[in-house]
């Protein structure tokens, strides 16, 4: 098998090379050398992006599982496996990210023996450990099927109900608790982002992001694998995304009204610019787009709206974790290039592992199964051309 050096492979190798260099700096010269974190900014990009955004972006797993197994949205069945795969990889990479960020990662297991039940971070940690285990079992059938091991699959199917309920319970807890992390900093976090509603907002955005992420990854992998896109699936997800975005937007609005902040958020200021950026990307553009039926029925439209809203929610998490502290600290924080490169490396690893998994494991349904399930009215040729035109750009 010869390996072609495509553009993306070169990019991947470059990212990995820079990431490995930064990894070396991290473990041989310390956090101070590898990052721009300081006593004033003890949490930087790695917490803001790798942890807060990473966990949020992995929310697709529990959203889709919930829709299919709790609410019988049968159509989404074909995206359960990719969503679980994304979530599983997401949490694994989140743990990898933690190993970079923790000052004493070799003691990470202390979490299991020295417990402080009052700590939100303890709760998040325990939930993440437990949920990653649940995801492992939800993911395992892919591997077992690949090797034709029928008996263990039967066992897993027997406990599947427990896995479903446990997975959603744990996700509810830690997705919202990531927001609770910031509740103890009322005097530090800017009032645009500090609100007692943080846990609700974090949970709400996780659901919207979970849906958007599922649209993103199915489109992306369909493109990569040259598969048909199952339009009805995307349309269903797009509709749900629109509702989720509305609910989130109303929650945010309600929170600002409740705290009497409306006057302040429309006044131009450093924080306001970032807030506007966040709200425009997360809500204004995607909601407007998805309100058009034409967009809701087109794969590109759905894809674009999802990506924009993802960027918006990522901006939101970075605002909560970074922008929101700059006024308190009195100066800006800009991650060092080595911080960026570690983050990029982790993202690249995610894409690569996803690619390997869908290649070697039965993640996506066989083409004939997909055809059998698809509705007779499905405009297949249209979708196929859409995919083609997409692959061109």
């Amino acid at each position, binding site marked *: 098998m010869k390996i072609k050096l495509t553009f993306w492979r070169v990019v991947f190798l470059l990212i990995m090379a820079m990431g490995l260099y930064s990894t070396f700096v991290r473990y041989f010269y310390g956090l101070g050398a590898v990052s721009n974190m300081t*006593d004033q900014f003890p949490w930087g990009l790695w917490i803001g992006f790798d942890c807060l955004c990473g966990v949020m972006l992995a929310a697709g797993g529990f959203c889709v599982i919930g829709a299919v197994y709790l609410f019988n949205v049968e159509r989404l069945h074909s995206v359960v496996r990719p969503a679980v795969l994304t979530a599983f990889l997401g949490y694994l990479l989140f743990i990898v990210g933690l190993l970079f960020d923790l*000052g004493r990662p070799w003691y990470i297991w202390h979490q299991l023996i020295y*417990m402080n039940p009052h700590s*939100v971070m*303890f709760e998040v940690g325990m939930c993440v450990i437990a949920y990653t285990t649940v995801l492992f079992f939800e993911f395992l059938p892919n591997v077992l099927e690949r090797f034709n091991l029928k008996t263990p699959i039967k066992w897993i199917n027997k406990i599947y109900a427990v896995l479903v309920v446990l997975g959603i319970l744990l996700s509810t*807890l830690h997705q919202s608790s990531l927001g609770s992390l910031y509740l103890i900093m009322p005097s530090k976090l800017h009032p645009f982002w500090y609100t007692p509603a943080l846990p609700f907002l974090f949970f709400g955005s996780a659901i919207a992001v979970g849906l958007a992420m599922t649209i993103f990854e199915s489109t992306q992998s369909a493109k990569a694998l040259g598969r048909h896109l199952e339009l009805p699936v995307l349309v269903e997800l797009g509709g749900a995304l629109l509702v989720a975005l509305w609910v989130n937007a109303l929650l945010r609005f309600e929170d600002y009204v409740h705290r009497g902040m409306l006057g302040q958020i429309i006044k131009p200021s450093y924080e306001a610019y970032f807030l506007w950026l966040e709200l425009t990307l997360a809500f204004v553009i995607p909601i407007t787009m998805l309100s058009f039926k034409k967009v809701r029925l087109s794969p590109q439209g759905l894809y674009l709206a999802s990506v924009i809203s993802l960027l918006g929610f990522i901006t939101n998490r970075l605002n909560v974790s970074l922008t929101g502290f700059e006024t308190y600290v009195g100066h800006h924080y800009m991650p060092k290039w080595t911080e960026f490169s570690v983050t990029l490396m982790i993202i690249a690893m995610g894409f690569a592992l996803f690619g390997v998994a869908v290649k070697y494991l039965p993640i996506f349904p066989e083409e004939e199964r997909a055809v059998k399930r698809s509705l007779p009215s499905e405009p297949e040729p249209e979708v196929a051309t859409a995919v083609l035109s997409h692959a061109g750009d």
Partner: protein
Amino acid sequence: MSKALLYDATMCIGCKQCEAACAQQNKLPYDDRVAAESVQSEHKYTVVMTKDDKFMRRLCMHCERPACASVCPVGAFHKTKEGPVVYDVWKCIGCRYCMVACAFAQPKYEWGSLNPRVRKCIMCPDRVVAGKQTACAEICPTGATKFGDRDDLIKEAQDRIRDNPSNYQPRIYGLHEVGGTCVLILSGMNVEEYGYPASAKIGDTPMPEYTGRVMEKIPDFIPVWSLVLGGIYWISHRREEVAAAEGGEKNGSKR
């Protein structure tokens, strides 16, 4: 009864002997260069700042309800009954949540170390437990830093303000802030001018309560939510079974 430190800025002559004594007590480097540093750091637990010929000390406040202890996932910080908030480096995993959470920005980090520790004034716990004063209070030549029972020190501070009202701002910083602290500050100037967080901003509510309000709901939330989720699961799969039993013309396709 919990011990405390009373720092009276009007009595401080800026000799920085507390800095030196603290460094010695905690085996930290101290020389002219460190003495000239005007900020706290991982090698400087306490600092005496100068502004317009007036002095002000900073050190960990040893909160009655410390945020640092409440947020630490492994409980590396804890409040002793004698007053000091102490740190167990062995437990620490280095998440730095304590640093982000402390309203007084006291915990500092060994950014240059490969096995970094969180550093802050720990109120000389060995000395305090042994019934001695803290190193900084013992060395202070004017009594500006005074060690004692918290209640006694509060009374004394109130007396000083009453006897010399023109010398002092009419408040004891740390009496009520974040639910009270074991470092109390008297001063002629506003402590905020030296970088202390404004009382109005941090408030009198102990910081852990902001999280506690949510955390205390979790034990109830878990069983309720599990039941709800389990119930929905059961109902939606019941339907499927019923549909299947009824001949399953269209299994589970419509609701």
